[in-house]
């Protein structure tokens, strides 16, 4: 593929030579194109960042102010002879795929994505291309996420079955927590939801961008009995931490695509595994590649071997990239 002379995968990110810019670099660079706000894609310390308004706000929250150019979905810009467009990836608020056109070729870098509906972000937009750079977090056929509504119903079922306890849901602070809250609201759950201190600023940011989260209350400094019969959301690291001892006999739940494998849930001492993911499952990954029919697929992080094999058996060109530092499992 001739595009290989202008776009180069490196362990520390994807380098776009004519633009002299890096996509999701894991080390500080002068010019960075960032797909979304998760820490394994958006690092601090870059010179200049191009990202969506939402992603820039998330990066500012996490790393302090950074100099950046806010890019709207669909807006075209030219950097060093490359035409660049950000289109929605459906992963978390502000997440984008980066579409690069140069020398008559098109490369799409998805960052992370999913295809199913998510009330907190704009849905994935498929863009036909020559080189499709995809994630593969759940790149094994055992990962098939069930319907989100039925998972949320299980959460509400456990809550209502134990009015003297609370359900503590482990959810990644950026994206998953807000998605779980909006999915609960969509199922008619109007009660206040208690949140861990580490989620407060990110939830406020989502609300500033117009995502309705309903009534949220700080879980810290509240008497345990007030939280009985309520849902408490905390980052996964807090589930088995001393922090959770303050809660009224919590049922420990976790919202993650990893929860599909029961030993994974057991390893994390989860009693109520909820298979709710912000990543494409196996069917979504393979359907997307089949739909876009790129000349070549590059597979970044996750279980790339299986997806690579799937492409090969269909006579589709594919290669696995070894990017460092990707895949924070809490994010699944």
């Amino acid at each position, binding site marked *: 593929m001739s595009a290989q002379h202008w776009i180069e995968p490196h362990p520390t990110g994807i380098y776009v030579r004519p633009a002299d810019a890096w996509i999701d670099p894991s080390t500080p660079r002068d010019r960075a194109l960032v797909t979304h706000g998760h820490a394994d894609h958006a690092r601090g310390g870059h010179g200049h960042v191009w990202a969506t308004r939402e992603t820039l706000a998330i990066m500012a929250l996490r790393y302090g102010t950074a100099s950046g150019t806010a890019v709207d979905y669909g807006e075209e810009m030219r950097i060093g002879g490359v035409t660049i467009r950000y289109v929605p990836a459906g992963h978390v608020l502000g997440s984008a795929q980066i579409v690069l056109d140069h020398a008559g070729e098109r490369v799409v870098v998805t960052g992370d994505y999913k295809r199913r509906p998510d009330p907190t972000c704009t849905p994935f937009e498929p863009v036909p291309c020559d080189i499709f750079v995809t994630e593969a977090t759940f790149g094994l056929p055992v990962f*098939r996420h069930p319907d989100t509504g039925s998972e949320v119903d299980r959460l509400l079922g456990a809550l209502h079955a134990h009015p003297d306890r609370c359900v503590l849901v482990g959810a990644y602070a950026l994206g998953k927590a807000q998605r779980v809250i909006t999915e609960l609201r969509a199922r008619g759950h109007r009660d206040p939801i208690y949140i861990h201190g580490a989620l407060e600023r990110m939830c406020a940011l989502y609300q500033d961008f117009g995502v309705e989260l309903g009534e949220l209350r700080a879980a810290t400094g509240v008497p345990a009995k007030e939280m009985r019969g309520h849902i408490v959301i905390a980052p996964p690291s807090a589930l088995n931490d001393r922090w959770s001892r303050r809660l009224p006999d919590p049922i420990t739940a976790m919202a993650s695509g990893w929860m599909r494998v029961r030993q994974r849930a057991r390893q994390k001492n989860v009693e109520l595994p909820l298979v709710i993911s912000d990543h494409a499952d196996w069917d979504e990954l393979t359907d997307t590649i089949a739909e876009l029919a790129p000349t070549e697929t590059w597979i970044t992080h996750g279980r790339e071997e299986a997806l690579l094999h799937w492409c090969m058996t269909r006579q589709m060109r594919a290669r696995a990239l070894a990017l460092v530092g990707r895949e924070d499992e809490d994010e699944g």
Partner: protein
Amino acid sequence: MRAFSQLLDGLVYTRSRNGKLDLIADYMRRAPDPDRGWALAALTGNLDLKAVKASAIGEMIRDRTDPVLFEMSRDYVGDLAETVALLWPKAEDQPPEIDDGSLTLSAIVDRLQGVSRAGAPAALAQMMHHLDASGRFALLKLATGGLRVGISARLAKTGFAQAFGLDVDDVEQVWHALSPPYAALFDWAEGRCERPDPAGTPHFRPFMLAHPLEADSVDLSDYAAEWKWDGIRVQIVGTGQETRLYSRAGDDITGSFPDIAGAFSGHAVLDGELLVKGEFQGAKEHGGAAASFNALQQRLGRKAVSAKMMVDYPAFVRLYDLLLEGDEDVRALPWTQRRARLEAFLPTLDPTRFDLSALIDAPDFDTLADIRAGARDAAIEGVMLKRRDSPYVAGRKAALWYKWKRDPLTADCVMMYAQRGHGKRSSFYSDYTFGCWTEDGELLPVGKAYSGFTDEELKWLDRFVRTSTVNRFGPVREVEKTLVLEVAFDSIHDSKRHKSGLAMRFPRIARIRRDKPPHEADRIETLRRMIA
């Protein structure tokens, strides 16, 4: 099936014993007959569907998935039934990932009891289409036996007893007079008929267990010492007409050990250590030798055992205690009296299958400590201390029985290969092969360990393996030889199986030595000097 698969999921995820009991009790009260009877049979390991072999699962999935993707998935998930349950492709006309409610547990059992071995894969596949992932998992576990949901037969019976306000020992007494789906048991439990007659059925009694010794010493005029043998505790229950063997958890393991059960025709209940004949642990001066636990493991968990197995791994029981003699319950008697009666009982037994756990003759505790330290050569784990006046009581009671294990040896080794684990550690690289240096600076494997680390350390080790892989051989990853592991082990022996000529006993990871450069790890010759 949905209620049953949810019960199994609940049992897998619930940590507390009381939580598990509540789930079982709740199911037993609510589920219809005869579903709940079959569920109770499955939970207690009494449901035997002979036509379905694990190979049926393989056969069923082979035509339906890409074999490479299947192997990758299985390697990741770590369990055949779960892998198949998760990636099962539903037929076009079936609702996706939904249990359509068309299959009851009893319908499934009826179907599988009626099917031939050749027909099993098709029958299973047809049922798989109607279930969700949890239901498919439950079906496959049910069909092949061994639910592995972390509960013992005893716990299942306790949950059943709790559901109907019964005493579990009363349930235990009638249990072996009944068979699945236990209609008479449920009739009794719900007050529809009299208690079934348990006369003459050999039932399980809970074991007496030991605490680790924490005090610096005990007075040997109060405590008797025995060797701690490395097999499994077993209870032999004979009625004169029938003999059964029970494991520590109350599981009936008679089927795996017909050589033992067949050699016992007495009317008594005995407690002992199930071992395989051999020379690995102990010697004549310890009251007899025995093969390693590894040899015994070849015989465990089998529904049926071949004649060759019994010849290659001949089992015997080293007796510790006597609970009942005839109809007389002697558990309340002091240990000294029970021991005397056990010694008197022994001559009635087949000496090739039963011997007596020898007492260690030591005048004082310091001498005992020396004897225990010296037993490292004999590969004995440690010593048991039993209060001479202790009655035989269920569970661990303070100050009655102690186990006193030896301190381990340690060596600094370098990680060489890693493999994914199973069960709780599945999908993590948790099995490590490590090596030490030869004179010529070559690293040779000296052992393999898959325990000893904390969950946090496991996460770190897993990450190390993933980021340091230099080679892959199927499921095995070779890693950069940069990480030093402090390995603890009970003893080390000559071995022809390994190139290093060494074999460790009970190796486990004691510490991760990130601070230590790999060339400072131990040399083979240092380990060789530890051979006692």
